[in-house]
């Protein structure tokens, strides 16, 4: 059995974001990057399946982006993926979902993966498109927003999260692709011995241009802080001052403090 996991590296969401020169996206300098949270669940689920099957499946982890994404790839290898593909694109001009999906599909097409795991969306762009697009380009069944996953005899049983706490159960035959939602499992932390072992695992580098020359289908502009809508106040200062101020406001503006 062969498994592919697609991971994206995203900035820490607690960062202060500034637009780049053309305001198409953020300025990368001073940002710390990490693995997309949704993809941590994808990696963990793939590794759990490998363990369930006595280590038989081979898991390839794939990430597209500049050299910094190797950091995220190494983490996935330390968690238990077997080998990695870094699709490198020297041009930092941002790529949109269609292009990313085309590259992943071009790589995966000849490899006969039985299962592909992706996150349901990225934390920075949040298009929730790449996974499903890859499946469509490969012509394999897919389902999204998994909070439960089981595999037996070539059939995936997926629990999808719907709105308001309702879930649904769906079965699909492999080869198939699933997109992972928060809470699917409890992602483990890589241990030191596994981090050391991961250093020996192979990372293949491919150039994005070799895989796909698809043109973008969307353009991005005016990356900005949203206009403040509310009339809220921002309080800063020492803790004691803040507590006093908050109590005064609550007494004044709400009927809950007497």
């Amino acid at each position: 059995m062969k498994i592919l996991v697609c991971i994206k590296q995203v900035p820490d969401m607690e960062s202060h974001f500034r637009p780049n020169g053309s305001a198409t996206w953020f300025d990368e300098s001073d940002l710390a990057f990490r693995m997309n949270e949704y993809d941590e669940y994808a990696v963990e689920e793939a590794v759990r399946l490998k363990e369930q099957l006595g280590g038989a499946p081979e898991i390839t982890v794939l990430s597209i982006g500049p050299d910094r994404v190797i950091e995220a790839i190494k983490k996935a290898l330390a968690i238990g993926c077997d080998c990695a593909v870094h699709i490198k694109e020297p041009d930092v001009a941002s790529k949109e979902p269609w292009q990313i999906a085309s590259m992943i599909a071009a790589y995966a097409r000849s490899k006969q993966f039985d299962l592909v795991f992706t996150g349901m969306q990225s934390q920075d762009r949040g298009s929730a498109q790449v996974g499903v697009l890859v499946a469509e380009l490969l012509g394999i069944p897919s389902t999204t927003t998994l909070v439960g996953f089981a595999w037996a005899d070539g059939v995936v049983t997926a629990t999808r999260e719907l709105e308001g706490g309702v879930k649904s159960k769906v079965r699909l035959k492999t080869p198939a692709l699933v997109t992972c939602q928060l809470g699917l499992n409890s992602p483990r932390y890589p241990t030191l011995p596994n981090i050391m072992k991961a250093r020996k695992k192979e990372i293949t580098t491919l150039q994005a241009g070799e895989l796909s020359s698809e043109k973008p289908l969307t353009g991005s502009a005016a990356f900005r802080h949203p206009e403040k809508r509310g009339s809220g106040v921002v309080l800063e200062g020492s803790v004691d001052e803040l507590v006093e101020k908050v109590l005064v406001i609550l007494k004044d503006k709400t009927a809950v403090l007497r």
Partner: protein
Amino acid sequence: MKLLLVGEYREGRLLDTTAELLGFAAAISGDASLFLVGSAEAVPAFSGTLYLADAKVYGEYNPEVHKQLLLKAVQEENPDLVVFVHSSYGWDLAPRVAASLKLAQVSEVIGFAGNAYEVGCCNAKMHRNVTPLTSKAVITIQAGAFPALQVEGTPSVKVLSTDAASTTEFMGYEPAEARDVNLAKAEIVVSAGRGIGKKENIELIRSLAKAFGGELGASRPVVDAGWIDHGHQVGSTGQTVTPKLYVACGISGSIQHLAGMKKSGFILAINKDKDAPIGEVADVLVVADLLQFVPALTAKLS
């Protein structure tokens, strides 16, 4: 502009979000038709063409078959824009249709200006404008971003059918778990977010909730990490609350969390990040380390 709106139908019911699609169509002054895999007995009121397929035959969730049905409607209607709700149905189906037609897709739209669609990014901290570079496009609209519109009229129904084969087997629904906490009735809700850092710190927030005489709520990561059970979760996949006072401790203010609490009477947020998007809806944003501020506030209250 010609729009094809994709309605939603689940557990034998037309979903309310269909009215938000009509609200979007009115906002953009579009000429709307509607696609629905639903039932002839639950036809939405509106005047225009309704492309209808029978959910009893084609299922409520059956992505490959729904895609083929929708492609038929697109072929007949030739819309400029195919519009979905950004929901578990919409984000699942939209990219399939976009891929088949090789059209641009813009996800989770909250506004528009000319040909550009406004979307949030970086966990709602930032916004940007996305412009389709194809002449037609697929979009999904954020739930709640466009006011629901109730219209009158009787659509002219065109029945769709297909013999496309299904690639997924639908097994059924699981109802939401029973809740042991009823946050919906609480006058005060004090919620813990990932910013509390570790499980033990839930107690700080619980003490504050007690001091206020309120209930304890939480954001999703706190629930997913197993720090508290799901009954306490506030948001689109948890409970919707409208207390007189909502206190958000270490919660960034993602759209899914806001969906569950933004109608609260008064919102107090405690966050060390001045830019946190919770500031968008908060009446007061206290920029502080909650580990210091929360115990100090609790002490003053009790």
